[in-house]
Protein backbone atom coordinates (compact mmCIF):
# COMPACT_ATOMS: atom_id res chain seq x y z
CA UNK A 1 0.00 0.00 0.00
CA UNK A 2 2.65 2.46 1.01
CA UNK A 3 4.48 1.94 -2.28
CA UNK A 4 1.25 2.68 -4.11
CA UNK A 5 0.72 6.08 -2.52
CA UNK A 6 4.42 6.92 -2.44
CA UNK A 7 5.41 6.01 -5.97
CA UNK A 8 2.70 4.53 -8.12
CA UNK A 9 0.09 7.23 -7.83
CA UNK A 10 2.53 10.08 -8.60
CA UNK A 11 3.82 8.11 -11.58
CA UNK A 12 0.29 7.42 -12.71
CA UNK A 13 -0.48 11.15 -12.51
CA UNK A 14 2.48 11.83 -14.79
CA UNK A 15 1.44 9.20 -17.32
CA UNK A 16 -2.20 10.23 -17.46
CA UNK A 17 -1.50 13.94 -17.80
CA UNK A 18 1.12 13.46 -20.51
CA UNK A 19 -1.09 11.11 -22.53
CA UNK A 20 -4.14 13.36 -22.29
CA UNK A 21 -2.36 16.62 -23.08
CA UNK A 22 -0.42 15.17 -26.00
CA UNK A 23 -3.21 13.03 -27.47
CA UNK A 24 -5.81 15.78 -27.48
CA UNK A 25 -3.30 18.18 -28.93
CA UNK A 26 -2.95 16.04 -32.05
CA UNK A 27 -6.37 14.38 -32.21
CA UNK A 28 -9.63 15.97 -33.18
CA UNK A 29 -12.93 14.40 -32.34
CA UNK A 30 -15.41 17.21 -32.56
CA UNK A 31 -15.61 20.89 -31.95
CA UNK A 32 -17.00 20.57 -28.45
CA UNK A 33 -14.22 18.31 -27.27
CA UNK A 34 -11.57 20.49 -28.89
CA UNK A 35 -12.94 23.53 -27.08
CA UNK A 36 -13.19 21.82 -23.73
CA UNK A 37 -9.62 20.57 -24.24
CA UNK A 38 -8.47 24.15 -24.74
CA UNK A 39 -10.17 25.23 -21.50
CA UNK A 40 -8.81 22.23 -19.62
CA UNK A 41 -5.35 22.92 -21.01
CA UNK A 42 -5.52 26.51 -19.81
CA UNK A 43 -6.70 25.34 -16.39
CA UNK A 44 -3.87 22.82 -16.20
CA UNK A 45 -1.26 25.47 -16.89
CA UNK A 46 -2.88 27.55 -14.13
CA UNK A 47 -2.53 24.52 -11.87
CA UNK A 48 1.16 24.46 -12.68
CA UNK A 49 1.41 28.17 -11.90
CA UNK A 50 -0.22 27.64 -8.51
CA UNK A 51 2.09 24.74 -7.68
CA UNK A 52 5.15 26.69 -8.80
CA UNK A 53 4.08 29.59 -6.60
CA UNK A 54 3.91 27.36 -3.56
CA UNK A 55 7.26 25.84 -4.52
CA UNK A 56 8.75 29.33 -4.67
CA UNK A 57 7.49 30.05 -1.18
CA UNK A 58 8.97 26.77 0.06
CA UNK A 59 12.18 27.79 -1.69
CA UNK A 60 12.17 31.17 0.05
CA UNK A 61 11.82 29.41 3.40
CA UNK A 62 14.68 27.12 2.41
CA UNK A 63 16.93 30.09 1.71
CA UNK A 64 15.94 31.54 5.06
CA UNK A 65 16.70 28.25 6.78
CA UNK A 66 20.02 27.86 4.97
CA UNK A 67 21.20 31.26 6.13
CA UNK A 68 19.89 30.80 9.67
CA UNK A 69 21.85 27.55 9.93
CA UNK A 70 24.97 29.25 8.62
CA UNK A 71 24.45 32.12 11.00
CA UNK A 72 24.43 29.67 13.88
CA UNK A 73 27.17 27.38 12.65
CA UNK A 74 29.80 29.62 11.13
CA UNK A 75 29.70 32.43 13.63
CA UNK A 76 30.84 35.99 13.07
CA UNK A 77 32.67 35.41 9.80
CA UNK A 78 29.52 34.60 7.90
CA UNK A 79 26.92 36.19 10.15
CA UNK A 80 26.84 39.74 8.71
CA UNK A 81 26.41 38.43 5.18
CA UNK A 82 23.69 35.97 6.06
CA UNK A 83 22.00 38.73 8.03
CA UNK A 84 22.00 40.92 4.91
CA UNK A 85 20.31 38.20 2.86
CA UNK A 86 17.76 37.39 5.55
CA UNK A 87 17.07 41.07 6.17
CA UNK A 88 16.52 41.94 2.52
CA UNK A 89 14.39 38.86 1.95
CA UNK A 90 12.14 39.67 4.88
CA UNK A 91 11.94 43.35 3.95
CA UNK A 92 11.07 42.56 0.33
CA UNK A 93 8.34 40.15 1.39
CA UNK A 94 7.04 42.67 3.93
CA UNK A 95 6.73 45.40 1.30
CA UNK A 96 5.15 42.94 -1.10
CA UNK A 97 2.57 42.01 1.53
CA UNK A 98 1.97 45.69 2.19
CA UNK A 99 1.35 46.25 -1.51
CA UNK A 100 -0.96 43.26 -1.53
CA UNK A 101 -2.88 44.61 1.42
CA UNK A 102 -3.21 48.01 -0.29
CA UNK A 103 -4.49 46.42 -3.48
CA UNK A 104 -7.52 45.24 -1.52
CA UNK A 105 -7.80 48.02 1.08
CA UNK A 106 -7.43 50.89 -1.36
CA UNK A 107 -7.89 49.59 -4.93
CA UNK A 108 -8.14 53.11 -6.35
CA UNK A 109 -4.50 53.89 -5.49
CA UNK A 110 -3.49 51.28 -8.06
CA UNK A 111 -0.75 49.82 -5.87
CA UNK A 112 -0.21 46.09 -6.23
CA UNK A 113 2.40 43.65 -4.95
CA UNK A 114 5.05 44.52 -7.50
CA UNK A 115 4.31 48.23 -7.72
CA UNK A 116 4.59 49.01 -4.02
CA UNK A 117 6.97 52.05 -3.94
CA UNK A 118 9.58 50.75 -1.48
CA UNK A 119 9.50 47.38 -3.18
CA UNK A 120 10.11 49.08 -6.54
CA UNK A 121 12.99 51.05 -5.05
CA UNK A 122 14.73 47.92 -3.83
CA UNK A 123 14.05 46.19 -7.12
CA UNK A 124 15.38 49.05 -9.22
CA UNK A 125 18.41 49.93 -7.10
CA UNK A 126 19.58 46.57 -5.82
CA UNK A 127 18.16 43.77 -7.93
CA UNK A 128 18.20 45.39 -11.38
CA UNK A 129 21.82 46.66 -11.39
CA UNK A 130 23.09 43.40 -9.93
CA UNK A 131 21.15 41.42 -12.52
CA UNK A 132 22.48 43.52 -15.39
CA UNK A 133 26.01 43.41 -13.99
CA UNK A 134 25.94 39.61 -13.72
CA UNK A 135 24.78 39.40 -17.31
CA UNK A 136 27.52 41.67 -18.58
CA UNK A 137 30.20 40.04 -16.41
CA UNK A 138 30.20 37.52 -19.25
CA UNK A 139 32.31 39.90 -21.31
CA UNK A 140 35.26 39.21 -18.99
CA UNK A 141 34.63 35.51 -18.98
CA UNK A 142 34.28 35.22 -22.72
CA UNK A 143 37.60 37.04 -23.14
CA UNK A 144 39.51 34.73 -20.80
CA UNK A 145 37.67 31.69 -22.18
CA UNK A 146 38.69 32.53 -25.74
CA UNK A 147 42.28 33.00 -24.61
CA UNK A 148 42.28 29.36 -23.50
CA UNK A 149 39.78 27.76 -25.88
CA UNK A 150 41.39 28.80 -29.15
CA UNK A 151 44.74 27.12 -28.46
CA UNK A 152 45.78 25.20 -31.58
CA UNK A 153 46.50 21.73 -30.24
CA UNK A 154 45.22 19.73 -33.20
CA UNK A 155 43.79 20.23 -36.69
CA UNK A 156 40.27 20.55 -35.34
CA UNK A 157 41.32 23.38 -33.04
CA UNK A 158 42.94 25.12 -36.01
CA UNK A 159 39.64 25.00 -37.87
CA UNK A 160 37.93 26.38 -34.80
CA UNK A 161 40.40 29.24 -34.53
CA UNK A 162 40.17 30.17 -38.20
CA UNK A 163 36.37 30.26 -38.06
CA UNK A 164 36.42 32.35 -34.92
CA UNK A 165 38.90 34.83 -36.37
CA UNK A 166 36.84 35.25 -39.54
CA UNK A 167 33.73 35.93 -37.48
CA UNK A 168 35.59 38.35 -35.20
CA UNK A 169 37.07 40.29 -38.10
CA UNK A 170 33.76 40.25 -39.93
CA UNK A 171 31.97 41.67 -36.91
CA UNK A 172 34.29 44.60 -36.35
CA UNK A 173 34.91 47.64 -38.48
CA UNK A 174 38.66 47.21 -38.17
CA UNK A 175 38.33 43.85 -39.92
CA UNK A 176 36.89 45.64 -42.93
CA UNK A 177 39.98 47.82 -43.08
CA UNK A 178 42.23 44.76 -43.19
CA UNK A 179 40.31 42.86 -45.80
CA UNK A 180 36.81 43.71 -47.04
CA UNK A 181 36.12 40.03 -47.67
CA UNK A 182 35.72 39.25 -43.97
CA UNK A 183 32.15 40.53 -43.79
CA UNK A 184 30.65 38.41 -46.60
CA UNK A 185 32.68 35.41 -45.43
CA UNK A 186 31.35 35.88 -41.90
CA UNK A 187 27.80 36.12 -43.23
CA UNK A 188 28.34 32.92 -45.19
CA UNK A 189 29.67 31.07 -42.14
CA UNK A 190 26.80 32.25 -39.98
CA UNK A 191 24.13 31.30 -42.51
CA UNK A 192 25.44 28.07 -44.07
CA UNK A 193 27.79 25.95 -41.93
CA UNK A 194 26.51 27.39 -38.66
CA UNK A 195 22.90 26.57 -39.53
CA UNK A 196 23.91 23.12 -40.70
CA UNK A 197 25.97 22.43 -37.58
CA UNK A 198 23.12 23.10 -35.19
CA UNK A 199 20.48 21.26 -37.21
CA UNK A 200 21.49 17.72 -36.20
CA UNK A 201 21.81 18.88 -32.60
CA UNK A 202 18.29 20.28 -32.72
CA UNK A 203 16.92 17.07 -34.25
CA UNK A 204 18.81 14.96 -31.73
CA UNK A 205 17.61 17.02 -28.79
CA UNK A 206 14.06 16.57 -30.02
CA UNK A 207 14.46 12.80 -30.32
CA UNK A 208 16.06 12.64 -26.88
CA UNK A 209 13.11 14.55 -25.44
CA UNK A 210 10.62 12.14 -27.02
CA UNK A 211 12.45 9.08 -25.71
CA UNK A 212 12.70 10.62 -22.25
CA UNK A 213 8.95 11.16 -22.45
CA UNK A 214 8.60 7.47 -23.25
CA UNK A 215 10.67 6.55 -20.20
CA UNK A 216 8.45 8.72 -18.04
CA UNK A 217 5.33 7.14 -19.52
CA UNK A 218 6.61 3.63 -18.86
CA UNK A 219 7.77 4.49 -15.32
CA UNK A 220 11.39 3.88 -16.21
CA UNK A 221 12.57 7.40 -15.44
CA UNK A 222 12.45 7.50 -11.65
CA UNK A 223 15.13 10.02 -10.70
CA UNK A 224 12.55 12.74 -10.12
CA UNK A 225 10.99 10.68 -7.33
CA UNK A 226 14.13 10.97 -5.26
CA UNK A 227 14.85 8.04 -3.00
CA UNK A 228 14.24 4.46 -4.03
CA UNK A 229 12.03 2.73 -1.51
Amino acid at each position, binding site marked *: MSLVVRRHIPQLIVTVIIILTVAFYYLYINKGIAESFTTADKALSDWAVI*ITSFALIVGGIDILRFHLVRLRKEGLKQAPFSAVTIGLLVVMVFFALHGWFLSYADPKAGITITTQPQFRWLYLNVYAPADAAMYSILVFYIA*SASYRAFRVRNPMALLLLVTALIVIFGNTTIGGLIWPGFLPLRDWIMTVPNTAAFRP*ITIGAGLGTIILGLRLLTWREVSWLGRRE
Partner: protein
Amino acid sequence: MTYLKISLGVILAVAILVLICVVSGISWLLGIQLYSTRAPFSAFLILLVLLIAGYVFMTEAKSGKEFPVRKIPAFDAIEEAVARSVEMGRPVHMTFGFGTISSAMAPQFIAGLGVLSHVARLCGKYGAKLIATLGVPEAIATTEEIVREGYYSSGRPELYDPTYNVRYLTDQQFAYASAVQATLIRENVGANIVVGPFYAESLIFMEAGNMVNAFQIAGTARETQIPFFVLVADYSFIGEEIFAAGALASGDRETLASIRGQDVGKLLSIILIVLGILLLLGGFKLVDSLNWVWKVG
Protein backbone atom coordinates in the same frame (compact mmCIF):
# COMPACT_ATOMS: atom_id res chain seq x y z
CA MET B 1 12.09 -20.14 -33.65
CA THR B 2 13.21 -16.61 -33.08
CA TYR B 3 9.92 -15.36 -34.42
CA LEU B 4 8.12 -17.11 -31.62
CA LYS B 5 10.26 -15.31 -29.07
CA ILE B 6 8.81 -11.93 -29.91
CA SER B 7 7.12 -10.82 -26.79
CA LEU B 8 3.53 -9.82 -26.30
CA GLY B 9 4.59 -6.18 -25.90
CA VAL B 10 6.09 -6.04 -29.37
CA ILE B 11 3.01 -7.60 -30.92
CA LEU B 12 0.80 -5.17 -29.05
CA ALA B 13 2.92 -2.19 -30.09
CA VAL B 14 2.92 -3.14 -33.74
CA ALA B 15 -0.78 -3.88 -33.53
CA ILE B 16 -1.42 -0.38 -32.16
CA LEU B 17 0.54 1.19 -35.00
CA VAL B 18 -1.30 -0.87 -37.60
CA LEU B 19 -4.64 -0.12 -35.95
CA ILE B 20 -3.94 3.61 -35.97
CA CYS B 21 -2.96 3.49 -39.64
CA VAL B 22 -6.11 1.53 -40.53
CA VAL B 23 -8.38 3.81 -38.52
CA SER B 24 -6.73 6.89 -40.01
CA GLY B 25 -7.09 5.50 -43.53
CA ILE B 26 -10.74 4.63 -43.07
CA SER B 27 -11.58 7.96 -41.50
CA TRP B 28 -9.78 9.73 -44.34
CA LEU B 29 -11.85 7.79 -46.88
CA LEU B 30 -15.02 8.57 -44.96
CA GLY B 31 -14.01 12.22 -44.73
CA ILE B 32 -13.78 12.38 -40.96
CA GLN B 33 -11.60 15.08 -39.41
CA LEU B 34 -9.60 12.85 -37.07
CA TYR B 35 -6.55 15.03 -36.37
CA SER B 36 -6.31 18.62 -35.34
CA THR B 37 -5.01 21.20 -37.79
CA ARG B 38 -2.52 22.54 -35.24
CA ALA B 39 0.29 20.28 -36.37
CA PRO B 40 1.25 18.49 -39.55
CA PHE B 41 0.23 14.85 -39.57
CA SER B 42 3.84 13.74 -40.06
CA ALA B 43 4.75 15.15 -36.63
CA PHE B 44 2.19 12.91 -34.94
CA LEU B 45 3.33 9.91 -36.96
CA ILE B 46 7.00 10.51 -36.07
CA LEU B 47 6.14 10.86 -32.39
CA LEU B 48 4.17 7.63 -32.50
CA VAL B 49 6.81 5.67 -34.40
CA LEU B 50 9.52 6.77 -31.97
CA LEU B 51 7.49 5.93 -28.89
CA ILE B 52 6.62 2.51 -30.25
CA ALA B 53 10.18 1.81 -31.45
CA GLY B 54 11.59 2.76 -28.07
CA TYR B 55 9.03 0.58 -26.34
CA VAL B 56 9.82 -2.39 -28.57
CA PHE B 57 13.52 -2.11 -27.78
CA MET B 58 12.75 -1.92 -24.09
CA THR B 59 10.68 -5.09 -24.17
CA GLU B 60 13.33 -6.83 -26.27
CA ALA B 61 15.93 -5.90 -23.66
CA LYS B 62 13.65 -7.32 -21.01
CA SER B 63 13.67 -10.65 -22.80
CA GLY B 64 17.45 -10.65 -22.68
CA LYS B 65 18.63 -8.96 -25.85
CA GLU B 66 21.79 -6.81 -25.54
CA PHE B 67 22.29 -3.48 -27.24
CA PRO B 68 25.88 -2.33 -27.00
CA VAL B 69 26.07 1.45 -26.67
CA ARG B 70 28.99 3.50 -27.92
CA LYS B 71 31.09 5.17 -25.28
CA ILE B 72 30.11 8.61 -24.08
CA PRO B 73 33.46 9.87 -22.73
CA ALA B 74 31.90 12.61 -20.62
CA PHE B 75 29.81 10.05 -18.76
CA ASP B 76 32.79 7.86 -17.95
CA ALA B 77 34.69 10.93 -16.83
CA ILE B 78 32.23 11.58 -13.98
CA GLU B 79 33.70 8.77 -11.90
CA GLU B 80 37.22 10.07 -12.53
CA ALA B 81 36.13 13.56 -11.52
CA VAL B 82 34.66 12.36 -8.24
CA ALA B 83 37.67 10.17 -7.45
CA ARG B 84 40.08 13.01 -8.14
CA SER B 85 38.18 15.42 -5.91
CA VAL B 86 38.34 12.91 -3.07
CA GLU B 87 42.09 12.55 -3.53
CA MET B 88 42.51 16.30 -3.36
CA GLY B 89 40.12 16.55 -0.43
CA ARG B 90 37.85 18.93 -2.28
CA PRO B 91 34.06 18.76 -2.65
CA VAL B 92 32.16 17.91 -5.82
CA HIS B 93 29.74 20.47 -7.24
CA MET B 94 26.74 19.65 -9.40
CA THR B 95 24.03 21.95 -10.71
CA PHE B 96 21.23 21.52 -13.20
CA GLY B 97 19.72 24.91 -13.88
CA PHE B 98 17.07 27.35 -12.75
CA GLY B 99 13.45 28.13 -13.49
CA THR B 100 10.19 26.29 -13.21
CA ILE B 101 10.00 22.64 -14.13
CA SER B 102 6.58 23.05 -15.72
CA SER B 103 8.08 24.41 -18.92
CA ALA B 104 9.22 22.72 -22.10
CA MET B 105 12.66 22.45 -20.44
CA ALA B 106 11.31 19.71 -18.13
CA PRO B 107 13.00 16.84 -20.02
CA GLN B 108 16.40 18.48 -19.63
CA PHE B 109 15.83 19.03 -15.92
CA ILE B 110 14.95 15.35 -15.59
CA ALA B 111 18.11 14.39 -17.47
CA GLY B 112 20.05 16.59 -15.05
CA LEU B 113 18.40 14.87 -12.10
CA GLY B 114 19.37 11.50 -13.59
CA VAL B 115 23.01 12.57 -13.77
CA LEU B 116 22.75 13.97 -10.25
CA SER B 117 21.63 10.61 -8.88
CA HIS B 118 24.65 9.02 -10.56
CA VAL B 119 26.98 11.63 -9.09
CA ALA B 120 25.40 11.24 -5.65
CA ARG B 121 25.90 7.47 -5.71
CA LEU B 122 29.53 7.90 -6.76
CA CYS B 123 30.05 10.47 -4.01
CA GLY B 124 28.66 7.96 -1.54
CA LYS B 125 30.92 5.26 -2.94
CA TYR B 126 34.10 7.35 -2.71
CA GLY B 127 33.07 9.33 0.36
CA ALA B 128 33.14 12.65 -1.44
CA LYS B 129 31.35 15.75 -0.22
CA LEU B 130 28.68 16.74 -2.72
CA ILE B 131 27.30 20.24 -3.10
CA ALA B 132 24.21 20.26 -5.30
CA THR B 133 23.06 23.77 -6.16
CA LEU B 134 19.81 24.44 -7.94
CA GLY B 135 17.40 27.13 -8.98
CA VAL B 136 14.37 24.94 -9.61
CA PRO B 137 11.94 25.47 -6.73
CA GLU B 138 9.89 22.33 -7.41
CA ALA B 139 12.96 20.11 -7.36
CA ILE B 140 14.35 21.02 -3.92
CA ALA B 141 12.72 18.07 -2.18
CA THR B 142 13.72 15.72 -5.00
CA THR B 143 17.31 16.90 -4.94
CA GLU B 144 17.54 16.41 -1.19
CA GLU B 145 16.16 12.91 -1.58
CA ILE B 146 18.54 12.03 -4.40
CA VAL B 147 21.59 13.17 -2.47
CA ARG B 148 20.37 11.42 0.68
CA GLU B 149 19.76 8.24 -1.31
CA GLY B 150 23.28 8.45 -2.77
CA TYR B 151 24.90 8.52 0.66
CA TYR B 152 22.51 6.13 2.42
CA SER B 153 22.61 3.44 -0.28
CA SER B 154 26.41 3.24 -0.04
CA GLY B 155 26.34 3.10 3.72
CA ARG B 156 27.59 6.62 4.38
CA PRO B 157 24.64 8.30 6.09
CA GLU B 158 27.00 10.35 8.26
CA LEU B 159 28.07 12.39 5.23
CA TYR B 160 24.57 13.65 4.53
CA ASP B 161 23.78 17.14 5.78
CA PRO B 162 20.89 18.72 3.85
CA THR B 163 21.85 22.33 4.46
CA TYR B 164 25.39 21.71 3.26
CA ASN B 165 24.69 19.27 0.42
CA VAL B 166 21.68 20.90 -1.18
CA ARG B 167 21.51 24.62 -1.76
CA TYR B 168 18.57 26.28 -3.39
CA LEU B 169 19.72 29.67 -4.66
CA THR B 170 16.54 31.38 -5.91
CA ASP B 171 14.94 30.86 -9.30
CA GLN B 172 16.16 34.21 -10.62
CA GLN B 173 18.73 33.52 -13.32
CA PHE B 174 21.60 35.78 -12.39
CA ALA B 175 21.10 35.73 -8.63
CA TYR B 176 21.43 31.97 -8.95
CA ALA B 177 24.48 32.36 -11.19
CA SER B 178 26.19 34.81 -8.82
CA ALA B 179 25.66 32.49 -5.88
CA VAL B 180 26.89 29.45 -7.83
CA GLN B 181 30.08 31.15 -8.93
CA ALA B 182 30.73 32.24 -5.36
CA THR B 183 30.07 28.70 -4.10
CA LEU B 184 32.52 27.25 -6.62
CA ILE B 185 35.30 29.55 -5.45
CA ARG B 186 34.64 29.62 -1.71
CA GLU B 187 34.18 25.89 -1.35
CA ASN B 188 37.18 25.32 -3.63
CA VAL B 189 35.44 22.52 -5.50
CA GLY B 190 37.49 19.81 -7.17
CA ALA B 191 34.91 18.80 -9.75
CA ASN B 192 32.25 20.91 -11.39
CA ILE B 193 29.47 18.95 -13.08
CA VAL B 194 26.92 21.03 -14.91
CA VAL B 195 24.11 19.23 -16.76
CA GLY B 196 20.71 20.65 -17.62
CA PRO B 197 19.10 23.44 -19.62
CA PHE B 198 21.34 26.49 -19.40
CA TYR B 199 21.22 29.99 -20.73
CA ALA B 200 23.81 32.76 -20.58
CA GLU B 201 25.04 31.58 -17.18
CA SER B 202 26.77 28.55 -18.73
CA LEU B 203 30.04 30.41 -19.29
CA ILE B 204 29.93 31.95 -15.80
CA PHE B 205 29.98 28.46 -14.29
CA MET B 206 32.75 27.29 -16.61
CA GLU B 207 35.03 30.23 -15.89
CA ALA B 208 34.41 30.21 -12.14
CA GLY B 209 35.22 26.47 -12.13
CA ASN B 210 38.36 27.21 -14.08
CA MET B 211 39.48 29.78 -11.52
CA VAL B 212 39.81 27.00 -8.93
CA ASN B 213 41.11 24.52 -11.52
CA ALA B 214 38.15 22.21 -11.08
CA PHE B 215 37.67 19.18 -13.30
CA GLN B 216 34.72 20.23 -15.43
CA ILE B 217 32.03 18.13 -17.07
CA ALA B 218 29.19 19.98 -18.71
CA GLY B 219 26.27 19.29 -20.97
CA THR B 220 23.10 20.86 -22.28
CA ALA B 221 20.67 20.40 -25.12
CA ARG B 222 20.16 24.14 -25.55
CA GLU B 223 21.94 24.81 -28.84
CA THR B 224 23.19 28.32 -28.15
CA GLN B 225 25.11 27.29 -25.04
CA ILE B 226 26.73 24.12 -26.36
CA PRO B 227 29.82 25.89 -27.80
CA PHE B 228 30.79 27.26 -24.39
CA PHE B 229 30.63 23.84 -22.82
CA VAL B 230 32.42 22.06 -25.66
CA LEU B 231 35.24 24.59 -25.87
CA VAL B 232 35.79 25.27 -22.19
CA ALA B 233 34.88 22.14 -20.21
CA ASP B 234 37.17 19.14 -19.88
CA TYR B 235 34.42 16.83 -21.05
CA SER B 236 31.06 17.70 -22.51
CA PHE B 237 27.75 16.15 -23.40
CA ILE B 238 26.56 17.53 -26.71
CA GLY B 239 22.82 17.91 -27.08
CA GLU B 240 20.98 14.61 -26.87
CA GLU B 241 23.87 12.94 -25.07
CA ILE B 242 22.50 14.37 -21.82
CA PHE B 243 19.35 12.30 -22.30
CA ALA B 244 21.45 9.23 -23.00
CA ALA B 245 23.49 10.02 -19.89
CA GLY B 246 20.31 9.94 -17.83
CA ALA B 247 19.60 6.44 -19.15
CA LEU B 248 23.18 5.30 -18.61
CA ALA B 249 23.05 6.63 -15.06
CA SER B 250 20.07 4.44 -14.21
CA GLY B 251 22.33 1.43 -14.76
CA ASP B 252 19.25 -0.43 -15.94
CA ARG B 253 19.52 -2.44 -19.15
CA GLU B 254 15.92 -1.90 -20.19
CA THR B 255 16.07 1.84 -19.63
CA LEU B 256 19.26 1.98 -21.63
CA ALA B 257 17.65 0.10 -24.50
CA SER B 258 15.25 3.00 -24.98
CA ILE B 259 18.02 5.19 -26.39
CA ARG B 260 18.07 2.91 -29.41
CA GLY B 261 14.79 4.65 -30.19
CA GLN B 262 16.73 7.91 -30.61
CA ASP B 263 18.87 6.15 -33.21
CA VAL B 264 15.77 5.04 -35.09
CA GLY B 265 14.71 8.67 -35.18
CA LYS B 266 18.08 9.78 -36.54
CA LEU B 267 18.08 7.07 -39.20
CA LEU B 268 14.53 8.05 -40.11
CA SER B 269 15.63 11.68 -40.45
CA ILE B 270 18.58 10.69 -42.65
CA ILE B 271 16.35 8.53 -44.84
CA LEU B 272 13.72 11.26 -45.16
CA ILE B 273 16.33 13.88 -46.10
CA VAL B 274 18.03 11.66 -48.69
CA LEU B 275 14.71 10.43 -50.06
CA GLY B 276 13.37 13.98 -50.22
CA ILE B 277 16.38 15.16 -52.19
CA LEU B 278 16.21 12.19 -54.57
CA LEU B 279 12.50 12.70 -55.12
CA LEU B 280 13.21 16.32 -56.02
CA LEU B 281 14.97 14.88 -59.08
CA GLY B 282 11.65 13.45 -60.16
CA GLY B 283 9.94 16.72 -59.35
CA PHE B 284 8.10 15.37 -56.32
CA LYS B 285 8.10 17.58 -53.25
CA LEU B 286 8.35 15.48 -50.09
CA VAL B 287 8.37 18.72 -48.08
CA ASP B 288 4.72 19.27 -48.94
CA SER B 289 3.79 15.80 -47.73
CA LEU B 290 5.68 16.32 -44.49
CA ASN B 291 3.98 19.65 -43.94
CA TRP B 292 0.58 18.21 -44.82
CA VAL B 293 -2.09 18.97 -42.27
CA TRP B 294 -5.01 16.58 -41.93
CA LYS B 295 -7.89 18.43 -43.47
CA VAL B 296 -10.93 16.94 -45.10
CA GLY B 297 -13.04 18.70 -47.63
